[in-house]
C-alpha cells in the first residue's frame, strides 16, 4: 500500500474525491482485496472517532474585564493632569529635601574654606570678595586651616560663626552683622520658601482629586453604556 493510495482511500471516505477519481477508485476496490481491507481499516478508525461523545466544558470560559485588562476610557485631559500632579509631587519632595540638606551642607563650609560664610550659601557667596584680601594678608593662617581641617562635629554653630567673623573683623569689613546672625545655624531661612511648598502641595491635592473625579465619572459612564 503506497502513500498515494492511502490518501485516496481516506479522501474517498470523506467524499473529497472528484466523481472521476471516485469511479476509478471504486473500480480498483472491486478487484483489489488488499485495497478494500485498508479502506475498511480507515473506515473503522474514522467511525470510532466520530462516535466519540462530545464532552461538555467543565465550566464557562467567558472572559472578565479584569482578565482582558479592559479599562474605561478616560478623558483626554487625564494624562495632562496626571503629568502635572506627578511633577508637582516630585518637586514638593525635592524642596523638602533641599531645605533639609542645604543648612547641613552650608555648615560644613567654614571648616574647609577660609572661615567665611556660615550656614547660608548666599551669604558665603556675597562674602567671597571681602575675604580674599585677609586671606592674602594672613597667609600663614590659611594653610594651617587647610592642612589641619577643623573637626566640624565638635564645632557649635556659634563657634563657626565666630571663626567666620574673625578675618573680616580684623580688616574692618564686618558690614553685614545682622545677616551673619541670621546665618547662624538653626534660625536660617529655608532654601525654598514655604509658600512654594504650599502651592505645590495644593497642586498635588487638587490634581489628585480631579483625577479621581474624572476616573469615577468615566467608569460610571462606561458602565451605563455597557
Amino acid at each position, binding site marked *: 500500500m503506497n502513500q498515494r493510495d492511502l490518501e485516496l482511500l*481516506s479522501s474517498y471516505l*470523506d467524499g473529497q474525491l472528484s466523481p472521476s477519481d471516485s469511479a476509478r477508485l471504486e473500480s480498483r476496490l472491486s478487484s483489489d482485496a488488499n485495497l478494500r*481491507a485498508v479502506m475498511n*481499516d*480507515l473506515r473503522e478508525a474514522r467511525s470510532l472517532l466520530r462516535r466519540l461523545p462530545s464532552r461538555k466544558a467543565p465550566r464557562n470560559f*467567558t472572559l472578565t474585564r479584569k482578565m*482582558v485588562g479592559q479599562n474605561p476610557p478616560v478623558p483626554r485631559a487625564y494624562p495632562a493632569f496626571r503629568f502635572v500632579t506627578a511633577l508637582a509631587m516630585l518637586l514638593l519632595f525635592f524642596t523638602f529635601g533641599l531645605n533639609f540638606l542645604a543648612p547641613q551642607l552650608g555648615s560644613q563650609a567654614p571648616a574647609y574654606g577660609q572661615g567665611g560664610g556660615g550656614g547660608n550659601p548666599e551669604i558665603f557667596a556675597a562674602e567671597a570678595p571681602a575675604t580674599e584680601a585677609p586671606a592674602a594678608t594672613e597667609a600663614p593662617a590659611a594653610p594651617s586651616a587647610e592642612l589641619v581641617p577643623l573637626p566640624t562635629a565638635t564645632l557649635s554653630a556659634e563657634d563657626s560663626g565666630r571663626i567666620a567673623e574673625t578675618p573680616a573683623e580684623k580688616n574692618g569689613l564686618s558690614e553685614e552683622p545682622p545677616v551673619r546672625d541670621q546665618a547662624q545655624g538653626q534660625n536660617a531661612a529655608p532654601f525654598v520658601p514655604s509658600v512654594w511648598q504650599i502651592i505645590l502641595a495644593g497642586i498635588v491635592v487638587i490634581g489628585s482629586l480631579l483625577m479621581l473625579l474624572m476616573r469615577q465619572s468615566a467608569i460610571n459612564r462606561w458602565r451605563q453604556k455597557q
Partner: protein
Amino acid sequence: MNEQVLIHDAQAGSLDAFNALVLHYQDNVFNTALRILGDEDLAADATQEAFLSAFRSITSFRGGSFKAWLMRTVTNACYDELRRQKRRPSVPLEPETDDGEEMDSPRWLADPDMSPEQKAEADEVEHAIQHCLNNLPVEFKTVVVMADIQGMDYSEVAIAVRVPLGTIKSRLARARLRLRECLQGFSELLPATFRLEEGSSA
C-alpha cells in the same frame, strides 16, 4: 444573535459579544484541547488561554470560518502547553499499574442517560481512543481531532493548522491508519458495539 454581528461587535471591543461567542464555541474548543492534550485540567487551561488570545487578536480575523480561526488559537495554546511539558515533564497524579499504565477511568464521557454498563463500555472505548491519540505525533493528532472528532472539513482544518490541503489529506490518512493499528491492541477491551473487524488490516 447572528454570529457575524457578534464578531463585528467583538472586534469593536464588546466583551459581551465576545462572551456570547465563547459560550457558543467553548465545548468545541475544550474538546479539541482535551483530545490533543489528553488531560482535563491542561485542556481547561489551554481553552481559557485560547479564548483570551482570541479576544486580543480578534481584529485580525478577516472573515471565513470563525470556528477554524478559533481552532487555530486553541491549537497554538495546546502546542505551547506541550512545549512547556517537554521542558518541565511532570509526574502524573493518577496512580499507575505495574506496567506504567495509568489507572484512570475517564468518567467524563458521562451521559446522564447511560446505564452503568453502557457507561463502563464508553469509558473503555474512550480510554482506548485517547491512549491511541496520545501516541500519535502532535501534527497528526491535531488533524485527526479536527477532522474526525470536530467534524471540520479539509479546508477548515487547513486554515486552522496553516498547512496546505494536500498535507492535511496525507496526515489524516496516516493518522487514521495508525489509530486503527493501535486500537486493534484494545480489541478485547472494546465492547461488541465498538469492536473492530479482526484481521482486516493489510
